[in-house]
């Protein structure tokens, strides 16, 4: 249990776990912990894959290389199944999203109190270790994907094609342009929002349940035992959730980008 110094209430415990370590005021607030863990995990991922890629042999691969190549081939086949064009960005983008989101989600597997307690011992008051439970993190990736959608829509279809797509569908008549525009804009905007909120919601809920289960510890031995069992059960289930969420984010990115490449 977190020793916050103040009186330890369940509300205080949960509140403490869900507060970011931040500097700055208003909009210019920076969530140091989210940025630290996400960038750190991203660098870890890129360093690992880059070092394997540099030493990659075409002969008999080592175990690490096999593992990395397995992931790369998995992503590559997913991209090739969905996206039938030539684009040098989509496959590396999908790989980055898949592995990075998975690693950020994986921070959820670390027992909820470990890193905040360590941080507390080091004098850092707040520490939220799962970056994907921060809306900013999920939204920024979704916005990155959104910008790519717009970029490729315009690149493939031209500005007029893109505008036509927004205004002449689904009702191909000049009088319906405002309705079409409204519908298509909502569809377009819904893409990044659904991407970001889906990942955020799943991970935030998962983290919250971990915290709630962790509240059962220390009450009495029966509740503690139940808590351990529940924690274990949720953890095992959560392995599926974090992998699935990473996969969904990657898959939807590929699907959205391949839709952006399609000419109607």
């Amino acid at each position, binding site marked *: 249990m977190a020793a916050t110094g103040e009186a330890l209430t369940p509300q205080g415990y949960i509140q403490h776990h869900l507060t970011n370590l931040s500097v700055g005021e208003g*909009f210019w607030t920076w969530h140091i912990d989210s940025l630290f863990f996400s960038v750190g995990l991203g660098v870890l991922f*890129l360093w690992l894959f880059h070092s394997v890629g540099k030493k990659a042999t075409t002969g008999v691969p080592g175990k690490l290389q096999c593992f990395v190549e397995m992931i790369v081939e998995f992503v590559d086949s997913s991209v090739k199944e969905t996206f039938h064009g030539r684009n040098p960005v989509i496959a*590396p983008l999908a790989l980055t999203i898949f592995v990075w989101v998975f690693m950020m989600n994986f921070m959820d597997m670390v027992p909820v109190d470990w890193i905040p307690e360590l941080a507390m011992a080091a004098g850092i008051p707040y520490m939220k270790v799962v970056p994907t439970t921060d809306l900013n993190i999920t939204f*920024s990736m979704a916005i990155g994907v959104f910008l790519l959608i717009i970029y490729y829509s315009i690149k493939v279809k031209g500005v007029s094609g893109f505008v036509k797509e927004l205004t002449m569908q689904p009702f191909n008549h000049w009088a319906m342009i405002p309705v079409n525009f409204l519908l298509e804009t909502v569809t377009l905007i819904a893409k990044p929002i659904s991407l970001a909120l889906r990942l955020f919601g799943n991970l935030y809920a998962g983290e919250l349940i971990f915290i709630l289960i962790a509240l059962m510890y220390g009450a009495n031995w029966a509740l503690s035992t139940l808590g351990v069992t529940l924690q274990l059960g949720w953890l095992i289930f959560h392995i599926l959730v974090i992998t699935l969420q990473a996969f969904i984010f990657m898959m939807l990115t590929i699907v959205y980008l391949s839709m952006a490449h399609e000419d109607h």
Partner: protein
Amino acid sequence: MNINATLLGQTVAFIIFVWFCMKFVWPPLMNAIEERQKRIADGLADADRAVKDLELAQAKATDQLKDAKATANEIIESANKRKAQIVDEAKAEADAERAKIIAQGQAEIEAERNRVKEDLRKQVAVLAIAGAEKILERSIDEAAHSDIVNKLVAEL
């Protein structure tokens, strides 16, 4: 959990990571994978070809074995023929040699017999003369009958 500047920082990080992945992570890994796939495909093709080659070689070896057996049979046959021929020749030669040796022996025996006969005749003559002398010493005058004795000696 409100939207703030973290969004900007993370977006920048995201763009940099994707760019890095595109430039330095994806190409070498994909190259290695594709290169290996090519090598495996080549290896499989080679294996197929090797199997075909092996089959051909086996067929060729069987043919050659058959040829070799036929040749060996031929050689053995001709050798047998030659052997019989040689044996026959040797037999004929030996016969001739034997006949020659027998003839020579007989000739030698004949010569020896003739020589012994001559010797015996001479000795018989001497004995006869000696016997005649003994008989004649008593009754005959040596001088009167010397012509007869001489005649005898001349006859012998």
